[in-house]
């Protein structure tokens, strides 16, 4: 997997100046995608994607199915490359550090950019507590006060009061919404700079969805959030910024319009955005 970037010199200098991801502090980070292209095999699925996801803000990626939103999201924490045949060009900067720099390990990028998936997926062989601590264990983080991490992460994810008396029970025993919040807590426990969410509410009922949305609003104090959603109302409710993706038939997806949520939904510039956010297609 290589990054075709012409300004290798620039990355060299920057790497020397600010160091790599491993030395980066854990606080909300700014994520910038620069001229990202992506392929599955020979088929190009994303073209010329430039997007800035601001610190402490919630950025929603919207657009019809198959336009590359999820692919783009997975590019942001190097999950894209785990798919056989997946390729990429461009750069993704986290606080000015290119996560696709050849000197960076994929694991470092994933440690700083966490992810919550469409379907709640707590590890069934672990207890609630172990689920929260899984990231620390996988990354061999020593010296952390486990109890404090568990309480803090679950509190941030809005789950602490519901599970504090049954931390030793399996994570799979929770309801769907609780499981999803457990996954959020699991993602937060490693103190990422960014949390990516791939349609986190699509498998949940309206009440659980509302809880997750509240949680998103709360955790944006701590981390930058990027969320893929098919639900326009949800995008309006949770996001500060929006990026509208669109792919013409058999063409790679690209960003049609990006801006503040107010602007995208209130006064979209591109007629296609107007059509989409007003439900005229998609």
């Amino acid at each position: 997997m290589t990054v075709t970037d012409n300004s290798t010199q620039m990355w060299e200098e920057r790497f020397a100046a600010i160091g790599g991801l491993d030395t980066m502090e854990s606080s909300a980070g700014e994520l910038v995608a620069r001229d990202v292209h992506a392929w599955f095999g020979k088929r190009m699925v994303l073209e010329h994607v430039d997007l800035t996801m601001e610190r402490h803000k919630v950025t929603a990626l919207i657009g019809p199915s198959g336009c590359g939103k999820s692919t783009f999201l997975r590019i942001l924490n190097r999950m894209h490359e785990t798919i056989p045949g997946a390729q990429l060009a461009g750069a993704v900067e986290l606080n000015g550090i290119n996560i696709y720099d050849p000197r960076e390990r994929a694991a470092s990028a994933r440690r700083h950019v966490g992810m919550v998936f469409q379907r709640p997926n707590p590890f069934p062989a672990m207890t609630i507590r172990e689920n929260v601590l899984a990231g620390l264990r996988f990354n061999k983080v020593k010296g952390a006060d486990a109890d404090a991490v568990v309480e803090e992460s679950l509190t941030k994810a809005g789950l602490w009061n519901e599970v504090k008396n049954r931390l030793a029970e399996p994570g799979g025993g929770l309801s769907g919404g609780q499981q999803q919040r457990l996954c959020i807590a699991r993602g937060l426990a490693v103190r990422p700079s960014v949390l990516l969410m791939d349609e986190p509410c699509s498998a949940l009922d309206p009440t659980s969805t509302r809880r997750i949305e509240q949680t998103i609003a709360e955790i944006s104090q701590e981390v930058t959030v990027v969320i893929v959603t098919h639900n326009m109302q949800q995008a309006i409710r949770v996001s500060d910024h929006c990026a509208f993706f669109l792919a013409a038939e058999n063409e790679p997806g690209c960003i049609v319009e990006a801006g503040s949520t107010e602007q995208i939904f209130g006064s979209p510039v591109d007629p296609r955005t107007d059509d989409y956010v007003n439900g005229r297609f998609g």
Partner: protein
Amino acid sequence: MEPIKIKPLRPREFKPSDVVVLALTALSTYSITWIVFHQLTLFSGALGFVVIWTLLFLGLYWLVNRQLFTRQVAIDRFVAALMTLGALLMFLPLVMVTSFVLIRGWNLLSAHVFVATQKGVSSLSDPGQAGVAHAIVGTLEQVGLAALIGVPAAVLTAIFINEIGGPFTKTVRVVVTAMSGTPAIVAGIFIYAVWIQAFHQGYSGFAGALALAVLLLPTVTRGTEEVLKIVHQDLREASIALAAPEWRTVWSVVLPTARSGLVTSILLGIAVSIGETAPLLMTVFGNKLMNSNPFSGPQAALPLLAYQQIKLPLQSEIDLGYTAALVLFLLVFTLFVLARIFAGGRLKGPSFARMRSRIVAAGLGATAMPDDLEANGDGTDFQNQQRPTGQEGELGRS
């Protein structure tokens, strides 16, 4: 107006009166069959009797229920009876094999058998003098070594095929499939030719273990592969997204999730190898004395002893063979129970804690739940949280 008594269209309960109907139907059809068989015709033979009895019973049972209840009930009962009889038919061979060995091996079974060997036992000896301790030791060592060699190799192979992959995945899978078709005797000849002949090693338990490992490997590999396939891709992704290296994902997420299935496939492999006689003929050879060193000299083994003894002329010798078979039964059973207790996942199936809390909620028990309140405050040592509680596994599977 009189309130209409509502009855379900298809009653599911089976009342005592229904049991009486069932028993009387069986009895009357038995009588009819007896009359047909012994008074009216010249039929003979138990098989024919049972077949005709069964058919008559099913027919009459349907008819009786049709008369007493509705059409749906009659069909329900008829199909239920058919299925139950089918299940009993399937169960029959198992009962027969088990009871045959149990009855034949019971004669000599005593505590003495487990401690004595065939040392100094001749045709003229007292029938109770011989024991199978040497064969128990031999089987345990051979199968233990075989598992030690075969299980890690098999699990790693399955992990390679399913988790890592690469250009050779298909080849490896084909080879494993081919291996699972290897006749047991060929595995024995192979080890005999390669280990004992070519390398000039003598007969030994280890040679037997090698042959058994050859047989165990494909079974465990295929079983493990199937189990790993079931582990949802979401979990691997979640693990990777938490920056876990690939080996971590396999070790901490995939294998624990597949734990109970993993144990089953390993047990299956051990079950396949522990009863094998053919590969031991040319590798272990058999021994009347205790040889507890598996790396040197011929050893005894339970299946081998059973095979060798039942060919002998004297009843006491044959009885010892059946006793060896019975001990093998008991050994396998014990191993399986132990494996289930130790390896039955603590978080598998319907959680014990959850079932218990349901019981508590139903007011059937008012005890506190110490496990739920137990604080796992062990700092950063996340590895040592194994807490084997066998009941869950047992409940989930038995």
